[in-house]
């Protein structure tokens, strides 16, 4: 029954009577904005096709959300920014060369299956974007691992180049990612083209390397992440413990000349780690909500990432590491509660 309120009537509810301005859509859209630097860097290095790949992921995500909710007779929530964000994140993890059906199908897997079938926002066990990407990687391993050399496709003196290859990827030098080279040919090969080690690190920071659309530029990702941290939308716990663990264990285990000889910096700056640590592992729904648990979660992600990179078949392990740790998030929350005020330990 709807109750009509007269102008002179007071609203009666129980306290509290004031609420903060924060809302779920506001959070989601802010995270979307914080990813724009990474997206723009992608456009700069890989051309305007980036926009199309990302847009298809977003459209696919929004459509999937609408479609499943319509089918289930649930309220439509495509305005809350969550599906848009999942689509954008998925897009940022794609190689620029993918045929257009891959973004469309994997965004349905991401939002339609991983999120909506499990109950919609708040109820998914796994990070939707990462499941979408995992599905694509396993289904189309070739297409999902054809990388190209970044080539400043967006050059103001040669605007035409930016528009090349938009429909289907035709040219562009194919290349391997630094982690790919590391896996197949060893660390010497990674540094071979560079005069000094620092040149490679600098390229990794800027994003001048082969890789997924939004993962290459460490600086661009950090700008967005810093913005989110300053607004207290994400806490430092997961990213810091994740990055520190990767650094530490790749240093311990990653060397050819025995323990403690690995190149920690190379591992921390490469692959999808930055994007994963700041934007995927920190996904509220699929990570622990208590600070202590977040540290453990980041540690687990870190260990798994290093193990996959060094010992397993894939050159990169961020995606699988986070997905595996997603399963443990509820367990971590259950067992690492905060200390209750006034309660002594062991009680």
């Amino acid at each position, binding site marked *: 029954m709807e109750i009509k309120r007269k102008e002179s009537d007071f609203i009666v509810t129980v*306290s509290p009577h*004031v609420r*903060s301005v924060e809302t779920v859509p506001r959070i989601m859209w802010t995270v979307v904005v914080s990813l724009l630097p990474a997206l723009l860097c992608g456009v700069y290095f890989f051309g305007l096709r980036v926009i199309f790949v990302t847009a298809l992921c977003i459209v696919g995500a929004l459509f999937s959300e609408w479609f499943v909710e319509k089918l289930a007779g649930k309220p439509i929530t495509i305005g809350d920014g969550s599906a848009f964000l999942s689509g954008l994140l998925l897009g940022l993890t794609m190689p620029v060369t993918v045929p257009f059906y891959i973004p469309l199908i994997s965004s349905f897997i991401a939002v339609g299956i991983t999120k909506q079938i499990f109950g919609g926002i708040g109820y998914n066990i796994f990070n939707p974007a990462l499941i979408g990407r995992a599905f694509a990687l396993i289904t189309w391993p070739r297409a999902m691992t054809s990388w190209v050399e970044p080539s400043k496709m967006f050059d103001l003196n040669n605007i035409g180049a930016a528009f090349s290859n938009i429909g289907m990827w035709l040219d562009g030098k194919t290349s391997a990612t630094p982690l790919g080279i590391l896996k197949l040919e060893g660390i010497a090969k990674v540094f071979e083209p560079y005069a000094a080690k620092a040149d490679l690190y600098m390229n990794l920071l800027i994003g001048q390397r082969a890789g997924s659309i939004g993962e290459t530029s460490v600086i661009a990702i950090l700008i967005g992440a810093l913005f989110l941290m300053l607004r207290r939308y994400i806490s430092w716990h997961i990213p810091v413990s994740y990055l520190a663990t990767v650094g530490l264990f790749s240093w311990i285990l990653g060397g050819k000349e025995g323990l403690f000889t690995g190149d920690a910096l190379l591992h921390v700056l490469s692959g999808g780690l930055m994007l994963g640590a700041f934007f995927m592992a920190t996904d*509220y729904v699929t990570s622990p909500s208590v600070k202590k648990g977040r540290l453990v979660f980041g540690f687990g992600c870190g260990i798994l990432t290093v193990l996959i990179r060094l010992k397993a078949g894939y050159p990169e392990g961020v995606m699988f590491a986070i997905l595996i740790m997603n399963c443990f998030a509820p367990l971590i929350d259950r067992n690492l509660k905060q200390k209750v*005020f*006034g309660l002594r330990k062991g009680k």
Partner: protein
Amino acid sequence: MGLLTFSVGGIHPNDNKLYTANLPIENLKAPKQLVIPLSQHAGAPCKPVVEPGQRVFMYSKIGEPTAFVSASVHSSVSGKVIEIRNHPSSTGRMVLSVVIENDGKDEAVELEEDEDYINKEPDVLKERIKQAGIVGMGGATFPTSVKLSPPKEKPIDSIIINGAECEPYLTADHRMMVEKPIEVLEGLRVLMKVLGVANGYVGIENNKKDAIKYMVSACAGFEGIKVLPLKVKYPQGAEKMLIKSILNREVPAGGLPMDVRVVVQNVGTAYAIYEAVRYNRPVVERVVSVTGAGIKNPKNLKVRIGTQIKDVIDYCGGVKAGVSKVIAGGPMMGFALYSTDIPVTKGTSGIVALVEQGLTHYEKYRACIRCGRCIEACPMGLMPQMFSVYVERGFYEDCKDYNLFDCFECGSCTYVCPAKRPIVQQIRLAKTLVKR
């Protein structure tokens, strides 16, 4: 040095105190008719000791306690008892109340002043406090005499006067500390004497700089009393938080302040104690902040107990058009009123009128996204989102695994929730449905 505060949780809502923070306390003339509830405290209601038609004086006792945890009620004007009937209170319950027609003369029962009150025996002082019907005037309304009677095995070593006033909008305690600092400190001195305690503290949040200044300078003449500025953080005025902030002691779960040798009293209560032991004056009036965007002329008023809230609001120019909520108390823990035909009682620290801004209430809420904001906000270290999700599913008993009964319903979780979930409301529901 950093300001003192409690360590876990807490929130920073806009304090909105500027409406009334700089306005001196005005006296509100007693209205033609007063409705004085016989239960204005936590504990057993009083039984009436007057009859309809009877003439009463100001300060006459009209309600007698029926149990240990109770507090007597006095007439706040002189006049005639018209009837004794049930009348709605600010919590929405019906309470037996004495309706008095004010004759406007304020003829008072003669009160005996005792200038040498501080040298009286603790028991004498305690009896005066009891006779005056003093209750916790911050809003919890627990009878003060009971708080001052801890069992022997629970010695007290510190008394804290709560000047945190962490609720947004309210400035009653603030003005009291600015205008009556000596009297408040005298009240504290009496409390220290009653409990035989050497350490007294006054905790004041740092958004009341003038109150801190006046209290610090007034404090110079008192031995063993410290005035401590506190970092602004809700819910610092909650007893457990305030004790943590000032003495770094943690009241054990399910326990009381006396379990860590502390008694906490509100600023208004300390003032009432001073009035009671020196002048033998019972509580018949209190300071009320009438404030919020919905009030035409916000004011701090000294109001006779039993004055209807509509009379108070009328004196402040009435409410503005578009008022959506009128609250007795602060906006974090106060009670929304459905009518202003409700009397001001000993626990009414404020009357706040809010206009609709989209932030006052939500009819719909979203799914929990497990963002952890409520966990970060909870001053008790609980996981409020678990209660919310369990209650939504009807798993009330499971709430006990997450220490349901340690929640004191400050509402911080609900304030911060971006999904606008009614978390504290769900917690209250669970508390009523689950056996301890």
